[in-house]
């Protein structure tokens, strides 16, 4: 299973994004500044943005899901129960996992933004997709939820998972690192080799590397392990 981007170029007015490379099975992290084209990349890979040149070849990919930055984008149900059903999931299982079963009759738009994001992620991660694209999955979550989501994402082995984010502190364990630099999507490599080339690496990681303690990966546990190394 893999996705191959060959000379892909998307243009919107004065902005453009070029991409070339292959997404194999595993967890990929794509980082970049705001406005660099991360969300457009999510639309490109999911087939929802068709104004581009080049080609995107999806080998062995039969199911695709994209989770957008703003969870309101996904709402189609009038109650939480209906919303879970619209995903083809059991409402009790999903709502209990995010501690929202007591609010099953509530309109999703009445939830706080953090609760809505939790629900959306629980629905998205509740099924297996060959290609799962998560656009800013950590925004609006509190640190406890971020840690829990990072833990769940670290365990994903089947399929291609692409996490697109500008998060600076909490990350799941990932297999591949990419970065959007100067309007171009660049593959930096696997872990931990890619860390040296990561231009916008978080301060914690840069400090650890400067002290000669390159972490093996970027999850909080890996960073702590590197920090405690003698």
């Amino acid at each position, binding site marked *: 299973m893999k996705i191959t981007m060959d000379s892909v170029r998307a243009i919107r007015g004065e902005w453009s994004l070029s991409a070339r490379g292959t997404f194999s099975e595993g967890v990929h992290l794509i980082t970049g500044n705001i406005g660099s084209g991360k969300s457009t990349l999510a639309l490109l890979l*999911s087939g*929802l943005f068709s104004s581009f040149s080049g080609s995107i070849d999806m080998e062995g990919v039969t199911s695709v*899901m*994209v989770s957008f930055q703003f969870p*309101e*984008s*996904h*709402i*189609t*149900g*009038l109650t939480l129960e209906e919303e879970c059903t*619209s*995903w*083809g999931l059991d409402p009790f299982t999903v709502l209990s996992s995010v501690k929202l079963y007591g609010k099953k009759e509530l*309109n999703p*738009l009445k939830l706080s933004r953090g609760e809505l994001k939790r629900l959306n992620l629980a629905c998205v991660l509740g099924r297996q997709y060959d290609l799962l694209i998560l656009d800013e999955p950590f925004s609006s979550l509190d640190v406890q939820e971020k840690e829990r989501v990072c833990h769940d994402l670290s365990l994903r082995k089947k399929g291609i998972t692409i996490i697109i984010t500008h998060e600076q502190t909490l990350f799941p364990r990932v297999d591949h690192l990419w970065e959007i630099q100067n309007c171009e999507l660049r593959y930096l490599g696997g872990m931990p080799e890619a860390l040296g080339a990561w231009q916008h690496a978080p301060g914690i990681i840069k400090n650890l590397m400067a002290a000669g303690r390159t972490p093996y990966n970027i999850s909080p546990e890996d960073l702590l392990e590197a920090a405690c190394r003698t």
Partner: protein
Amino acid sequence: MQDVRLRIGAAIVLSLAAFLSITGAFLVFIWWLVFTKRLQILKQFRLMVPLMVLMAFFSAIVELTGGGGLSYFFRMLVIVLIGMWVYQEQQSKEFLELAVWMFGDRAGFELGLLAEMGMQSLNLLVADFDRIRIAEKLKGIFWGVVSIVPTGLILVHGALSRADAAADILAVRGYHNGGTLCPEFRTTGTDIIGSLAAAGIFIITFLPVSEFFILYR
């Protein structure tokens, strides 16, 4: 038409002329062909579809119950085209400037701000609708007639939620009653010609044209 005062005035007289008679509707349609950016308006076609469906329905009833349905449909269609022209040409802050010019910086500002926020809300409703369609496509839900009511309810809820947020922002920015604004308008030669033509069409609609030609003979 750059001057919003002339544009709204022209829209009102043209709509009245189109409503009152088939001759008026025909002349207004010619005016629309000459003075508007037709292609850009027709690109907004999908916004007209629900209106056209409604118009066709009522026209059919009129035709079946007494006749005149076709005339009714054509006249309503022309009015919709004028409405689409006003919507397509609308620029930010125009309604606010118009309202302040007409009614002052208290009542006028309030009415104008209401109109501006209404127009913004309309644009956002269209974006919300597109988002719901994408969400349903991702979930494998077929969008059909049964989706209309749930989609409508979600759109209403979204609009109300945005209205709440807008109210918070207005409050925190110190909005109480009206505001300061110096309206600025730009009138071009084309605006004046178009307005005069609209006024001419309106007058002709009220003239007994056939009797005029009898007198001439």
